[in-house]
């Protein structure tokens, strides 16, 4: 067990290195609402928020519900000269399902539906026991690491802006109306943005460790401070 404020320059215990510039910092337990930034490059090192885990879990469930709506309701509808067409989110992904454009369908399904769902599930899996002060589930560590690694590849918000651009492009050509899936998707973006704002990776790593994943015996428990 490592007590707060002590560090060891030979083993690195009690220290934190900035992931962007490698500057060393002495580890300290933060109060909720505090933000730790790198002294050199100003990168956020940790920003714990009160009740963050419960909120992230709630937001993840919300995003799953909205995603079900976004997938199964009609997305956009177009009409012109008596001809009409409507498409769902799946329809959009399947636009590339001809011939050798096929792999792009998989990439599209993954980046706008699969990865957002997977990330929500992984976050709930990691944080659910932590928010109830129980030891984390098995493989919580690789689950959370996977969730962080997939973050840049989950592109739901880019897709919504893409929708806006596509609508401007065909706006003069035909009448467009939005289906419920479109609004569900817009809601999803807000929910995901809120969830990301509450997520502080460093804090979650600390919490996984404090909750009893056997790692390296270096975790600082809040009792020591008192």
């Amino acid at each position, binding site marked *: 067990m490592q007590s707060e404020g002590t560090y060891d*320059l*030979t*083993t*690195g215990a009690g*220290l*934190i*290195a*900035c*992931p*962007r*510039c*490698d*500057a*060393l910092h002495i580890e300290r337990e933060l109060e909720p609402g505090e933000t730790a930034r790198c*002294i*050199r*490059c*100003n990168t956020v090192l940790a920003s714990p928020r009160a009740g963050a885990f419960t909120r992230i879990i709630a937001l993840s469930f919300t995003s799953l519900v909205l995603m079900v709506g976004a997938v199964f309701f009609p997305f956009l509808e*177009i009409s*012109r*000269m008596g*001809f*009409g*067409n409507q*498409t769902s989110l799946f329809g*959009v*992904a*399947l*636009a*590339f399902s001809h011939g*050798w*454009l096929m792999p*792009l369908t998989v*990439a*599209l399904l993954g*980046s*706008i539906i699969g990865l957002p769902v997977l990330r929500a599930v992984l976050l709930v899996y990691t944080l659910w026991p932590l928010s109830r002060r129980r030891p984390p589930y098995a493989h919580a*560590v*690789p689950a*959370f*690491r996977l969730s*962080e690694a997939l973050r*840049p*590849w989950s*592109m739901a918000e*880019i897709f919504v*802006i*893409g*929708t806006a*651009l*596509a609508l*401007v*492009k*065909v706006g003069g050509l*035909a009448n*467009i109306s939005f289906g419920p899936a479109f609004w569900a998707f817009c809601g999803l973006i807000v929910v995901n943005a809120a969830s990301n704002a509450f997520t502080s*990776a460093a804090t979650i*790593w600390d919490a996984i460790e404090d909750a009893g994943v056997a*790692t*390296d015996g270096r975790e600082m428990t809040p009792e020591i401070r008192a």
Partner: protein
Amino acid sequence: MSTHDGPILTAHRAGLVGCRSCGRVWPEGEAICQRCGAELLPPDRRCLNAVWAWLVAGFIFYIPANMFPMLKTSTLGGIKGSSESTILGGVVDLMHYGNYGVAAIVFIASIIVPIAKFVSISWLALVAGRPATVSAAHKRLHLYEVVEFIGRWSMIDVFVVAILSALVQLGFVASIHPGPAAVSFALSVAFTMLSAQSFDPRLIWRGLPLRSRKD
């Protein structure tokens, strides 16, 4: 801004290696972070091989993305003509119709941004680890953060093609189909993202003198 003027000890100079995933510090030579399981890599120029490899792959796929059509449009059963438009052709068409705003967005997102990304990553990789002043290092990190942030947004063009092809299927009146450029553009964006992710921003700070010249 909390700028620190004194000399700063880095994990590398202390003979330690920091985990880029969770921040924990380990003695040099450890391979795996025991807290989060991520691979521990010292900040050296070896990562640049991967940066260059992904960047070249991204650039190679960017060439057919500009040569082949992105969209195939046919109006009124082909009577009013069916057209195949490349990225640049699409921009020219939009300007023809007077949609200067959209034309500008497409031009910036599909042509300026990808080329700026290729140039920025190449420059960052070329100067990585070379001596720099503190303010130059801050500028480089800022550039890297912009490239990292903006990289995924280039995918917007592929999404627009998918939405248009799924939506505009009005049989005789008008129909839009995706062209082969969509795939190579998507691959180009993905490879450039991987290139930016392979770059280790800690290299930017490697070249700084241990003490500032004043002392």
